[in-house]
């Protein structure tokens, strides 16, 4: 808790030497990348790279655990890259790559760790064991680290396949499902620390486990983990910002839905004594939807601007666009009801749960059942 009379010091004065070191490392890394690969980037990509410096630095300043995560992911990813020595076949030979940190191995570790984290959170919730819950958080952190390493290394691997094949790994359903799991887990970890409650991890990790289940099915049944070159429509710098922004939105909505489930259960006395107070769950649910809505708004706008450049119109009533609008309208209505009418309680929790179905349809259902311009991730 803040000192009662201490004025909140300006952010810059509250920073420790580690904060500055972190920012310096981020800047050094980005500038090194810029100096090395400037020839391969267009002006927008350079701008995005430069904008990443302050974004990551500020993210680390506001959310301290982000710093070690970033450094660990960075260090291990660089180690993995060094293990390749520019030869893709090393994936099957080098010990670390083969079993731990080639992209596919790392992502499979992520899947396993998310699975363990889910079980651990539930054990901790049912046994009222703080230690077990903390273990659940630690496992979730490890899963997040492994997942990011997997994506980073995958990014590098795509360039090893071919200089013209290489691209940021957010281009198909497999890659974005990994991204979804990571972003959802990170958003949850942030709120977990902020609201000082770990019990809700048991619920949030369920939706991540579902995503993990999908990743596994998609890998083993469909071989979707293969890196494919980009279709011309996706070759654009817009992808780098449109897709991640969207997944902050999806992540927020998914967390809210799982909290809605927890709220409804607790409201009926199920697990009530083990879960935090209803107001806390409600507050967290609101915050997830708020951040999700904000980013979903940005993502949809970015998508419209990209569409204007790729398809010749910022809005074509393409099924994906239309469903994005429906999702947006849904949560806009949710926020109106809560903020303007001041409504609380089970209705909003139910609504958040139903919202997940609407969101999932926009996310996967459209690709499965409807056809349109946006058919990059077909099942």
């Amino acid at each position: 808790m803040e000192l009662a009379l201490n004025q909140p010091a300006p952010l810059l004065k509250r920073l420790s030497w580690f904060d500055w070191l972190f920012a310096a490392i981020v800047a050094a890394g980005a500038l090194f990348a810029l100096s090395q690969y400037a020839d391969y980037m267009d002006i927008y990509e350079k701008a995005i790279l430069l904008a990443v410096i302050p974004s990551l630095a500020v993210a680390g300043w506001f959310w301290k655990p982000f710093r070690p995560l970033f450094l660990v992911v960075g260090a291990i990813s660089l180690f993995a890259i060094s293990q390749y020595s520019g030869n893709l076949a090393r994936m099957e030979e080098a010990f670390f790559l083969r079993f731990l940190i080639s992209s596919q191995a790392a992502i499979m570790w992520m899947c396993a760790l998310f699975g363990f984290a889910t079980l651990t959170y539930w054990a901790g919730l049912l046994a009222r064991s703080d230690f077990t819950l903390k273990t659940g958080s630690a496992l979730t952190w490890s899963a997040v680290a492994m997942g990011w390493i997997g994506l980073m290394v995958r990014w590098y691997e795509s360039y090893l396949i071919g200089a013209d094949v290489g691209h940021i790994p957010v281009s198909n359903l497999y890659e974005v499902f990994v991204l979804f799991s990571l972003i959802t887990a990170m958003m949850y970890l942030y709120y977990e620390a902020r609201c000082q409650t770990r019990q809700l991890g048991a619920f949030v990790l369920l939706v991540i486990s579902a995503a993990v289940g999908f990743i596994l099915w998609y890998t083993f049944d469909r071989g979707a983990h293969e890196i494919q070159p980009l279709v011309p429509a996706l070759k654009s710098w817009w992808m780098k910002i449109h897709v991640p922004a969207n997944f902050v939105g999806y992540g927020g909505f998914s967390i809210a839905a799982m909290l809605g489930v927890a709220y409804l259960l607790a409201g009926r006395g199920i697990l009530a004594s083990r879960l935090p107070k209803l107001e806390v769950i409600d507050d967290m649910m609101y915050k997830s939807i708020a951040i999700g809505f904000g980013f979903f708004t940005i993502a949809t706008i970015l998508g419209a601007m990209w569409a204007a450049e790729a398809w010749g119109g910022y809005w074509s009533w393409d099924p994906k666009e239309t469903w994005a609008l429906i999702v947006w309208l849904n949560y806009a209505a949710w926020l109106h009801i809560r903020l303007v009418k001041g409504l609380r309680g089970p209705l909003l929790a139910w609504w958040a749960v139903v919202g997940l179905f609407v969101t999932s349809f926009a996310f996967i259902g459209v690709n499965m059942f409807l056809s349109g311009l946006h058919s990059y991730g077909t099942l």
Partner: protein
Amino acid sequence: MNTATPSFGKSLFELLSSMRFAISLLSILAVASIIGTVLKQSEPYANYIMQLGPFWFLVFEKLGLYDVYHAAWFLVILTFLVVSTSVCITRNAPNFVREMKSFREHVSEQSLNAFKHRHEAVTAHAPEALAASAQAYLEGQGYKVKNLPREDGVLLAAKAGSWNRLGYFLAHSSIVMICIGGLMDGNLIFKAQQVLGYKKIETRDIPQSQVPAISRLSPSNPSFRGSVQIPEGSSADVAFLNVADGYLVQELPFTVALKQFRIEHYTTGQPKSFESDVELFDHAGNKIREATIAVNHPLVHDNVAIYQASFADGGTRLTLRGWNLFAPTASSFPLAGTVYQDTTLTSEAGEHTLEFIDFRPFNIENMGGDIVETGSAMSVLGGSPVSDNRHLRNVGPSFQYKLRDARGQAREFSNYMLPLELDGRWYMMSGVRDTPNEAFRYLRMPLDAAGDIDSFMRLRGALLNAELRPEIAARFARQALPQEARSTEIEDKLKFSASQMLALFAEGGFQSLGRFIEDNIPEAEREKAVGTYLRILELATFEALQLTNQQAGLPVPPADDATGWLVRDTLNSISDMFVYGAPVYLQLMSYDEVKASGLQLTRSPGQNVVYLGSLLLTLGVFFMLYVRERRVWLRIKPGHALLAMSSAKQTIDFEKEFTQHAQALDTLTQPASTPAKNPEA
């Protein structure tokens, strides 16, 4: 009922500005939007009739479901949403502006006492001194504070987060803005002209230049979204707008000429880029500029954005060799054709119209072949992310055509230029299907040792030639019998059988043979008979091959596996010819490719309005969600201080902040007057 009119107006205003109405509109809009995603939009009307049947087709058409998002009723809902949002803004605006500015300094002590969030403290400080320190504290917390002297002390009125209200304005007016921008880019002007009878949709398939003025839109049309397909070396000064079951011709303010269209491929064969080199000319023929348009890289000129949207064949010239499949000879005839053009074929089977549909320079096919997984760690982990494209192969060019008989019945064909390897042997492939929904069935014609279909064609001609039959049968009989059995009755019998088999086969392939066996052989002996007859047929065909080789001046075919397969494949292929559905096979010898680029041209004056609206929307949403509006009052009297706090949204964060301020007040009112620091909790 004098008051009826004003109260109606008032209640209409109430309704329009009510949130329930707005939420209902949003819900209706959402449901209406879903319809458009489930039913494919803007398809040719014929597709809908097939899908829905004539009755529902009309019902759906009346409801405007084929273009939901431009249907009148949909626009009405949107308009209502805009009106409702605007009314909501006008209704709340004055109040909100007042709220933003106001410190609510006239609040009475009585009402402060009624606040849910209030905290009292006893103090020994002079009111002014306490007011000063409290003001400093609140300002440090980001509050704007007004110090108001009262008769018996001081009232501090403070507020923070007024931008929340600004967020409301931004978010809601931006919705109106986005909708207006969208309407500017919509086709309202055309719709009005259509209703008034000034413009009409063209539904006939006629050359562009013959489209009458009533279906043409002038270059000054403020907004449009059309497309045009330009072959290499040609140009266009119009674009086509698809509307309902017809189209409109949009005249462009310039002429676009396509110099070249390029497709680049990845090594795996997937397309990597589509690019068009274009030149723009004004209508006087002066070159304005030159540019390359690619996907994601449009060209903007004169507020018209030109996009790479699609590609197609632009009228490739094909040099063909035609084979009369049922002629008893092996001669072919030369033929030339151009994609999208028709030509007439005259044969014994009657007159056919040959319609060239398409030409594809690349065909990436999955040639199958199981990839053996090695038992490695990678397979446990789902395998390597490096895709295995060994089974993908570019099988070369193909061309598509329809053959329409005199009755108008047409079949579609797709022929590959190069042979394909199947089961280790090479064939020329020709695909055929009766309707576009079917998959192609393939006629495979075997290649000879020289890699041509000539041997097949000669053999086919010989087998269909009734005049050669006695000789083939005779050769067969002589070969089949040992020396001493020749010139006996057995030889005559064999000759007869072979002739009969060959004649039956030439009539309708294996099917006629099958029918013959069914009609003439008792069931118990059929299986054996089939074996014997096939053997006779194959051996006779081998003799025919020797004969045709001899006639063509070629060496005697060796009696090896390759020849055996050539014979068998030829028989299969001839048998398939009877269900091939065309009397002629067209072999592609060479081509001169002409590509066409599909460009989309748009003019959207509302785009910047929409973008500005989007920016405001984003700002508004974040202000609304992340700026919390709070008010604090501190009523200080000699010896007593009352803290009251309010917020429109009472969240956990608000409760926390109130507790913090209450503690601060306790600290400030402490007699020591030293603002002691609390130990960190």
